[in-house]
């Protein structure tokens, strides 16, 4: 066993926890603008899931090799494909036949206790206070997957965890009923505070583990509904030294994953740094990690 890291950051905790959910026979679906997800899948691939396969929405490709996470050259990664499909059907065709298992991470803007999610708007749909980009494929696919759907957010607060989402664009376990389309439904929500899961019986969200240094009260206060709390509350296993070393040294040395976590000035500075570094690269195929 590798020792646990002592200086990991929150983005690293998120990424490592997401990586740990990947199984060796998964197809890992990578959407757009989700560097944490990409970093997590890549980390999984170079640690415990060497046979897992990337499926890039970006390229409509299945890709076998892991490469360094990149901001500008994602498309180059997706081009190294052994399956290049001709159309948007790839998206539809990755809806697994029962012989395929997939893992896809969704980041909801709002989520309720049954794992219903909202990526559409805050306020009334017709006159929204905030209009979000839209739900992309969440409404289509989240309830299909036999392995279920996987959720994460670096913003565990009462704006995200709400009693009732303003628009259901991803279906969880409505009213505590099993997933309506045959999939396994939401499996977990990984946040900056805790690893959340769903109760087998009631289908309500419950605390799986709490991250080191976070107390129960903080989690409760940051959640807009009542969470089920296990009697024997455990702490999340933090990233190991090995995971951190790989993440920082190889998988995402430019820290692009942090763009999902930072805000304001800090975020802009990081963005500029990454752009500068990547534009300066002569070779624009990100490093192969084998």
């Amino acid at each position, binding site marked *: 066993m590798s020792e646990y890291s002592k200086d990991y950051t929150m983005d690293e905790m998120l990424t490592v926890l997401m990586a740990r959910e990947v199984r060796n026979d998964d197809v890992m679906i990578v959407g757009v603008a989700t560097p944490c997800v990409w970093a997590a899948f890549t980390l999984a691939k170079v640690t415990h899931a060497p046979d897992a396969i990337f499926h890039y929405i970006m390229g409509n490709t299945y890709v076998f090799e892991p490469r360094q996470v990149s901001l500008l050259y994602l*498309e*180059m990664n997706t081009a190294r494909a052994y399956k290049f499909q001709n159309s*948007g059907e790839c998206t539809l065709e990755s809806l697994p036949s029962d012989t395929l298992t997939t893992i896809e991470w969704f980041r909801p803007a709002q989520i309720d206790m049954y794992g219903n999610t909202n990526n559409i708007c805050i306020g009334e*749909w017709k006159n929204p206070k905030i*209009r979000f980009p*839209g739900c992309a*494929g969440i409404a289509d696919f989240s309830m299909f997957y036999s392995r279920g759907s996987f959720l994460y957010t670096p913003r565990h607060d009462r704006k995200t965890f709400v009693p009732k989402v303003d628009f259901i664009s991803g279906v969880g376990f409505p009213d505590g009923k099993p997933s309506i389309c045959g999939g396994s439904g939401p499996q977990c929500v990984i946040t900056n505070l805790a690893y959340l899961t769903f109760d087998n019986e009631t289908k309500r969200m419950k605390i799986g583990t709490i991250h080191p240094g976070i107390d129960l009260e903080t989690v409760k206060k940051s959640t807009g509904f009542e969470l089920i709390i296990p009697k024997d509350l455990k702490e999340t296993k933090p990233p190991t030294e090995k995971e951190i070393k790989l993440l920082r040294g190889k998988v995402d040395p430019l820290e692009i994953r942090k763009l999902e976590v930072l805000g304001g000035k800090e975020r802009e500075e990081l963005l500029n740094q990454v752009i500068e570094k990547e534009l300066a690269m002569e070779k624009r195929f990100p490093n192969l990690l084998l």
Partner: protein
Amino acid sequence: MDSKLMSLEEAISSYVQNGDLIGIGGLSFWRKPICACREIIRQEKKDLSICTFVGGIDVDMLVGGGCVSEIRASFVGMEVFGMAPHYRKGVESGEIRISEESEASIALGLKCSYLKVPFMPLKGIIGTDFPKVRDDIKQFEDPLGSGTQLMAMPKIDLDVAIVHVNDADEFGNGNIEGAVWLDDDMAKTAKKTIIISEKLVETEDIIRLPRRAQIPMQTTAAVVKVPFGAHPTSCFPNYTFDPIHIQTYLKTDFEEYKRKYILNKTHSQYLEEVGGVQTILNVLL
């Protein structure tokens, strides 16, 4: 055979009418026909419905330019650069109508044309709030009696498709090197298709690209050659997207942006304005 080669100006003025439902190819920041978006703004087209798989600066710019009344996209955003400002403002202010879409609703909506069916069945969407805001979709039961509940997703009938490709011949055969997404379905099912191409090649060259030339000339109305025409989005494997110009876009008031980069600018002048040679070297792979 007649050549369909024409200028961007002629293509847009001949084939894009106010009120049309326009399909835009590409995805997010990747292989978007942005030069055509600028031309649409220059020609002050109005009341367009814009349909795209995943929108970004394309949709946002057209909204900023006042050309759009309705959007049909599964997602409109600026990726890691943030939200799409004009899109967001347009929707929040109620100026822009949204047809709430998912990936499958657009993919399947386009496929209907081939089979000449009015809808395609989807197992997704059920349980979401989509039916509350889409009165043109409907839950129904499998007519074959399995009891399965399904959602009927309606046909999408594009008036015009605008797609950006790597190679095209003058007759309208187009070849895309990277991912195709829904570009072929748009091009083949739209009433009129405008191909913007990085490069003009002979039909001979297209024939030598087995399984490539995804866009057959039969449905092409116009072919326009515009190298770097997708800037500031990418055109794999020629160039990647221009993160610096995307940041400039997000920081610049749209009227100023329009003055500086769109109105009365030839394509050459546009490329000079966005940084000229250095920008070209930045984005080339």
